[in-house]
């Protein structure tokens, strides 16, 4: 398979509830040719066909080449005539039906068309209003089988939508569908952060007249004030074990890093001094934090032990660097790299300290890794509007998601959810 120059696809969402338009550029080095046959029984279901959710998910990664079944419609392995699928390496077929309790079941099979064997076959069920969730789950399993990495189609993202004076804290599927507003205010909302179990969001809101940090449950919508000291209470981030958070308080003058338990107790100060210290992010072992500081004269990224102590500077390139976040495997961190008035998304290897710029530059801010480490989500701008974008962690495949209303800011990719 060859590198395909630049494919531009425009997937205008078919569903009436689509909140985002998605545009993809670039392609993976080794695109896998796959054909997805419309599942038997889909014509009787309301809403978007599950098989097209799967196709769109796979296509958006840039790692697959979707081949039209050209009228062929097998639904069982026995129906498949292998010689009829030249150039197709993987074939997805299946059936959908309604089962007990108003649930929908998909039985699918993924076939290796070269070896003429079945790679996997499973049944996935969900409530009938969650057809898209089934599609994402099937896509996750197909992706994992064909690439060796877990799929992230079932995961969720959080971001802030600013529309005029209204700010909404939004949680959505990783493809931007299924938007749910967690909080709507006429005051700014900033810096959402997922708990490691994906059940809570910490964020900053100005509803009390200044930056206050809250923690809110997604299921119950109940929330607590995590920190509301004079000045700014901001930049929350969870420890990998979910037991505490790091955040930034300016109550003692300058902005410094602190840790605190999930209930707001046991506040401990980590950094001291007059410089700006902000945007903490835990390393995978939970023992140290990356953060942004201007202690050296410009904003750069540093690492400090959680109990405090010597802070090591990690970034030296560009005018300044912001918003570090660690990769799921702990080997890299991604950040916003500012050079000559332009923000780029860049990654740096902890071990050899090499930096790689992943994007073409713009107002590119607040990057975060997908939980499989293969994609980076960030905020950028297109035609004067704040939008979401992703770039593959090798920089090859880029995707933009344009909201129907408002500016999208402060995105963060959520964790894998336990099945």
């Amino acid at each position, binding site marked *: 398979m060859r590198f395909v120059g630049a494919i531009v696809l425009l997937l205008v969402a078919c569903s009436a509830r689509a909140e985002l338009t998605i545009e993809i550029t670039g392609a993976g080095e080794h695109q896998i040719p796959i054909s997805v046959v419309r599942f038997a029984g889909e014509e009787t279901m309301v809403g978007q066909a599950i098989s097209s959710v799967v196709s769109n998910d796979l296509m958006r990664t840039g790692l697959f080449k979707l081949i039209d079944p050209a009228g062929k419609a097998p639904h069982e392995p026995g129906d498949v005539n292998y010689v009829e699928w030249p150039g197709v390496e993987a074939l997805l077929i299946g059936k959908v039906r309604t089962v007990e309790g108003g649930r929908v079941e998909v039985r699918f099979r993924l076939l290796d068309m070269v070896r003429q064997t079945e790679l996997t076959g499973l049944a996935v069920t969900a409530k009938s209003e969650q057809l898209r969730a089934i599609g994402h789950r099937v896509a996750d399993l197909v992706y994992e089988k064909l690439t060796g990495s877990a799929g992230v189609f079932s995961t969720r993202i959080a971001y802030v939508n600013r529309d005029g004076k209204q700010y909404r804290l939004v949680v959505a599927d990783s493809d931007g569908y299924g938007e749910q507003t967690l909080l709507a205010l006429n005051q*700014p909302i*900033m*810096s959402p952060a997922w708990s490691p179990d994906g059940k809570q969001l910490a964020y*900053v809101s*100005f509803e009390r*007249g*200044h*930056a206050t940090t809250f923690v809110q449950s997604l299921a119950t919508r109940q929330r607590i004030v995590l920190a509301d000291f*004079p*000045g*700014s209470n*901001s*930049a929350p981030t969870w420890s990998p074990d979910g037991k505490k958070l790091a955040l*930034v308080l*300016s109550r003692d*003058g*300058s*902005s410094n890093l602190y840790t605190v338990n999930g209930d707001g107790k046991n506040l401990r100060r980590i950094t001291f001094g007059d410089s*700006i*210290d*902000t*945007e903490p992010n835990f390393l995978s072992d939970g023992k140290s934090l990356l953060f*942004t500081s*201007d202690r050296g004269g*410009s*904003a750069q990224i540093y690492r400090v032990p959680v109990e405090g102590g010597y802070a090591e500077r990690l970034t030296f390139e560009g005018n*300044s660097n*912001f*918003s570090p976040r660690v990769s799921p495997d702990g080997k890299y961190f991604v950040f*916003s790299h*500012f050079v000559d*008035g332009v923000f780029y998304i860049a990654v740096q290897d902890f071990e050899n300290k090499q930096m790689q710029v992943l994007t073409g530059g713009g*107002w590119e*801010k*607040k990057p975060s890794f997908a939980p499989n480490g293969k994609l980076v989500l960030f905020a950028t701008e297109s035609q004067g509007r704040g939008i979401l974008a992703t770039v593959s962690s090798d920089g090859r495949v880029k995707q933009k998601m344009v909201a129907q209303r408002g500016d999208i*800011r*402060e995105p963060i990719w959520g964790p894998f959810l336990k099945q």
Partner: protein
Amino acid sequence: MKKIFLSIVLVNLLAACASETPKEAVEEPTPAVTETEATAPVEPAQAPVETVEAAMPEERSVYFPFDVDAVQAADRAIVQAHGDYLSKNADAKVRVEGNADERGSSEYNLALGQRRANNVKKLLILSGAQASQIETMSFGEEKPRCAEHNESCWSQNRRADIVAK
């Protein structure tokens, strides 16, 4: 005195710029600004400092260079006038709101705006105000007065506002 006058005119000009932007509401009405500009050459600078003591000084914003949080020499008189006012009006309270332009991360800019507000507070105290009269907070880059990506906008957004409570 001349310096003070110049800085006031400069600030007024900046405020005038802000009023041209369609989106954001401007606190100071344009007519007042033009009036100050027109009359200023005849009666320089003393107006904000020595008018009725019971009134809060008219000039309520100070501006900062990129990534700088120290109150600029040209703006010190504005802050000092508020410090003087607060010292003579023990019941008065103000809130200092720091702001930053968009060149940085939202969190870095929140911290930068906070530091700008803190520095205004320090100068207010040096000018006679009590710490208990002053609250500080930051909006960072979240509430830009001007929303375009250019220096004339950014210079308006790198600002601390002294607001009556």
